[in-house]
């Protein structure tokens, strides 16, 4: 089942590329391909039994001599993220509907990307996990480089160099770990770590391997100071690709932390939790304050995304700083907050990029200073935009708040001072987001805006699932949290020591 979910998009991509005449119907094929995958994935996640651990397992020997299996399954950690990919992928295809040049290549790259994302989230063996991880990178590179904005070449190259360097470090670290422990299997490695085998086998190398594995994820999340690739890449990528990057790719880093680093190197995180916490905190503040001074709307959103994803890392590292489990189980709350934040931010940020991209479509500029008074001309657009902005700045009963309050509730009990400083970013977020609204929508309309068109109903339909979801997450988060509840309880206990 999972294999089918994973590979249907790539089959669709092959169909677009190889079948004669398929080029003219590349869009419907891409839509159908991603939609089938999505529906299957949603079906699987609905069938996920909350009372049990790993489910829907498929395990086949692949290269037995080096312990490589094809091993996929769904547990509490990836269920929500698979759901996220499933929800976003058809919307992203729809958001790309206006692509005209080289549409075949575009859609096949996009579909390959979806396959890689599904694969990376379901893989339980390092070997093919890494293949998918890298495979997600390559289409993104080409999509930015071929279809991006003016600065696309530079952005694509720095994106590629950063992530590849990180990946190489991670690969080397994991290979070393394999040589010492003889396993590529995440579940097995986790058990080995729990039994103390990992730390005893690695000995003095523990710190280096920990660092190497972290580095790849560090870049992907990204955390300060390895974040500079992010803003140009998000800003220059075509809008649907920005949606993929911010909606799903940035979650891969956090997911990697929870899948690899936390179970395998819990002592490493605990030992360095103060440094890591400070790094996450700096990233939070950094993103928020950088966004304050931007006028390019996509850059603002990119920095805002940097800030929001760093909250997840902040929660994880705060758990690392915990001393055991207290009566309110703050570690579990913080980590569940991180899980929900991944989902909520994925949904919200993808929506924001989509709707911000419309600005460039209709007005031909990404600079917020070129706009004004759109509220009167495009009320529907203003409504959707404002909705997503308020979700992003943490308005209660919308997605962002539910996740952030969990993170803060947990983290405050663990590290009050860090959390109090992190709250400053909430203020900065409110300032820059409201400034955008003020600039774009209020005041007198510019003379040049006379011919601006309201967004169509079709575009509202594309975005509306995200809006509905935002409300659902915000009003009753328990539905989504239940998916990961059991898993996170164990994981946070493991990390909190």
């Amino acid at each position, binding site marked *: 089942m999972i294999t089918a979910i994973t590979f249907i998009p790539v089959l669709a991509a092959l169909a677009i590329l190889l079948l004669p005449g398929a080029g003219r119907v590349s869009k419907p094929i891409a839509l159908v391909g991603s939609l089938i995958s999505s529906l299957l994935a949603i079906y699987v996640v609905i069938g996920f039994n909350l009372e049990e651990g790993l489910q829907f397992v498929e395990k086949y020997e692949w290269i037995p001599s080096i312990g490589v299996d094809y091993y996929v399954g769904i547990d509490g950690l990836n269920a929500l993220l698979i759901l996220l990919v499933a929800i976003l992928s058809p919307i992203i295809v729809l958001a790309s509907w206006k692509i005209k040049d080289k549409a075949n290549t575009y859609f096949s790259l996009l579909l390959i990307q979806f396959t890689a994302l599904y694969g990376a989230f379901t893989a339980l063996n390092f070997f093919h996990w890494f293949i998918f991880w890298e495979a997600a990178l390559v289409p993104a590179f080409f999509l930015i480089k071929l279809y991006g904005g003016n600065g696309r070449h530079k952005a694509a190259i720095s994106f590629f160099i950063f992530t590849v360097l990180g990946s190489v470090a991670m690969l080397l670290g994991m290979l070393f770990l394999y040589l010492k422990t003889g396993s590529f299997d995440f579940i097995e490695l986790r058990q080995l770590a729990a039994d103390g085998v990992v730390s005893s086998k690695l000995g003095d190398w523990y710190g280096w391997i920990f660092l190497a594995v972290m580095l790849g994820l560090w870049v992907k999340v990204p955390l300060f100071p390895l974040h500079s690739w992010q803003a140009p890449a998000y800003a220059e990528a075509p809008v649907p690709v920005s949606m993929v990057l911010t909606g799903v790719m940035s979650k891969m880093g956090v997911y990697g932390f929870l899948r690899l680093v936390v179970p395998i190197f819990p002592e490493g995180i605990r030992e360095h939790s103060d440094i890591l916490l400070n790094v996450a905190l700096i990233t939070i503040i950094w993103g928020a304050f950088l966004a304050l001074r931007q006028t390019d709307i996509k850059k603002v959103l990119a920095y805002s995304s940097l800030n929001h994803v760093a909250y997840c890392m902040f929660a994880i590292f705060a758990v690392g700083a915990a001393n055991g489990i207290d009566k*309110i189980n703050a570690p*579990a709350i913080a980590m569940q907050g991180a899980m929900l934040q991944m989902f909520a931010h994925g949904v919200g940020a993808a929506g924001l990029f989509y709707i911000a991209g419309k600005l460039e479509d209709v007005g031909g500029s990404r600079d917020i200073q070129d706009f004004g008074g759109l509220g009167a001309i495009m009320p529907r657009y203003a409504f959707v935009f404002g909705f997503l902005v308020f979700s992003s700045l943490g308005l209660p009963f919308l997605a962002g708040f*539910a996740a952030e309050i969990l993170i803060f509730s947990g983290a*405050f009990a663990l590290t009050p001072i860090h959390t109090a400083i992190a709250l400053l970013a909430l*203020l900065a977020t409110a300032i820059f987001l409201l400034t955008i609204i*003020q600039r774009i929508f209020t005041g007198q309309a510019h003379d040049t805006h006379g011919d601006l068109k309201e967004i169509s109903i079709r575009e509202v339909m594309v975005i509306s699932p995200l809006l509905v979801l935002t409300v659902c997450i915000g009003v009753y988060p*328990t539905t989504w949290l239940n998916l990961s*509840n059991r898993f996170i309880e164990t994981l*946070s206990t493991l990390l909190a020591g």
Partner: protein
Amino acid sequence: MNLFDFSDSVGWLMWIPICPLIAGVVLALLKPSGKVSAMVAIAALTVSLGFSLKAFAGTWGHEAHTLTHNFTWIQIAGVNLEFGVVLNSLTGSMLAMVSFIGLLIFIYSASYMSQDERMGRFFCYLSIFMVGMLGLVVANSVLMLFMFWEIVGLASYLLIGFWFHKPSAAAAAKKAFITTRIGDLGFLIGLLWAFKATGTFLFFDGGVGILESSTIAALASNTNVLWGLNGAGVIAVFLFIGAVGKSGQLPLHVWLPDAMEGPTPVSALIHAATMVAAGVFLVARAFPLFLADTAALEIVIWIGGLTALFAALIAIAQYDIKRILAYSTVSQLGLMMVGLGAGGLAIQDGGVSIGMFHLLTHAFFKALLFLGAGSIIHGCGDEQDIRLMGGVFSKMKISSLAYLAGTIALCAFPFTSGYFSKDQILLSAWEANKTVFWISAFASLLTAFYMTRQCCYVFLGKYRGEGHVHESPPLMTVPLVILAVFALLLGYVSEHFYHVLDYLSGVHVHQHNSTVVIISWIIALGGISLGLLVYARAKMGIDDVDPVKRLMTTPYGWLENRLYADELYQLTAFKLWGALAKAISAIEGLIYIMVVVATAIVSMIGQFFSGTIDKKLIDQVSFDGTCKRIYESSQINAFIQNGFLQGYLRIVTAGAVVIGILFLLLAR
């Protein structure tokens, strides 16, 4: 959550915020015409009012009773983050006031906004506001209270910026949201702290809620947690920061006067009667926490007292009718804080009723004043400058009389509602802290003075503006009359109200002190007569200098400029914030340059590899070389394999000969 059990549980309280929510969603999605929108919103709020009155009636006579109904919002690893509703006399009276005044203002707005093409949107926002306000009143969870608190903030943002085509309105909306958000961060820390310390978000939860005596005792036993406060005091102070933001106390008061950019009913509903009172309500709700630490109460009275004085001073020198009322609101909110703090210091548990009662009376007379001002502004052709009014009394009798009723209540003229409530505040302050008492007393004197000044400007003399002054339609004047009745007479039920509001002890300690009563008479009458003395015969045109300004030009100039609070923030906080952002951007720039350099180096190394090693060694020598050899050798092969049959045969023969020779040689 049990919404349909109307007898045992109090889950039905949730209907009070849900009704306007339904209206808001309907209005947002269906976008009916303005009139229909108004009717939908008013109908929904009427239902809410019905439930609110049921709640209010239920608390009447059951002061110390606290009924709760809690339900789980999020469950994580066996820990519940709970929501709930609470019904006690505080909830009951606040609900009744908010929905009653809300309903009057809705009705007023239906007429006031009837010319606006976005009237439907306006009622949608108003409904959202009522959701938040009523939700925060019924909330039994500090988290839930905070969530509705933020919804209120959103509604305030939307309504202040309702006429967003005016840049000033848009800026004021943003300023309001962000300034209150600064306070909200304090609130957030407070609630996180409470969760950390008590493990629950609930106020009342069968003995283990935050506000229940055992929890408070446990919190207070932790002395000197932060800044010399005890465990309960810290939470109280952080919550108070939230209240400071929402209620426009010093130093976060700057947003409230600007918020007058919104339509006048909004100013009446949100920025006078209800939302700004939410801060006071929060302090009243969390009052046991404040009681547990006198230092927290001291902070409350000092902030409150200073705010009252500061705002009253500024109000003297303003010319915008709504702005004067706005500063007056800030000042009165300060007095409410003084009432709560001083009440807590003077009579412990009973203190909550002192601030809360002023909140209730103030809500009525200030809503009345704002709606009256709206009516006058409407009558004078949307003019807000009092220098361009004058002589309005004879043209708009009902509005003016209602307005005057509100004014004397605000001035604490004896036996109006304001007199009873303010009297109690001064009494408590007298007991608690003499300095704060004199500050509050002076602020009250100034209140009487500036209100008289305003009335002189507006009602006396001849009309100085242009056009024709006309009375407003009955849909606007009827709410005014109703509010006026309440503003004048609410004091006579004060004894009942004090009783009802004493939800903590159930017993009211009646305070009496003849000195204070005499002082408060002097303040009210003295302020009014002083005002009349100065302004009754003064020239008040736009070109004339205000009489007080003639007397003390420089200090009056400061007051006209609102004591430079905004400018101060521009110079300090904004600069600092901007500098921080600039510094971070600069460092980011540096990092980016480093990244570019690193990328360049990497690509140079790459060039080296691809240019030298790759191209020369691997490509040319190894790969290309091999290919060339193979190609060349194929020439030879091609020569041999020429398809010439006898050629092959020759080679076969030659091979056979060679093999034969070898065979012969080796066989030897």
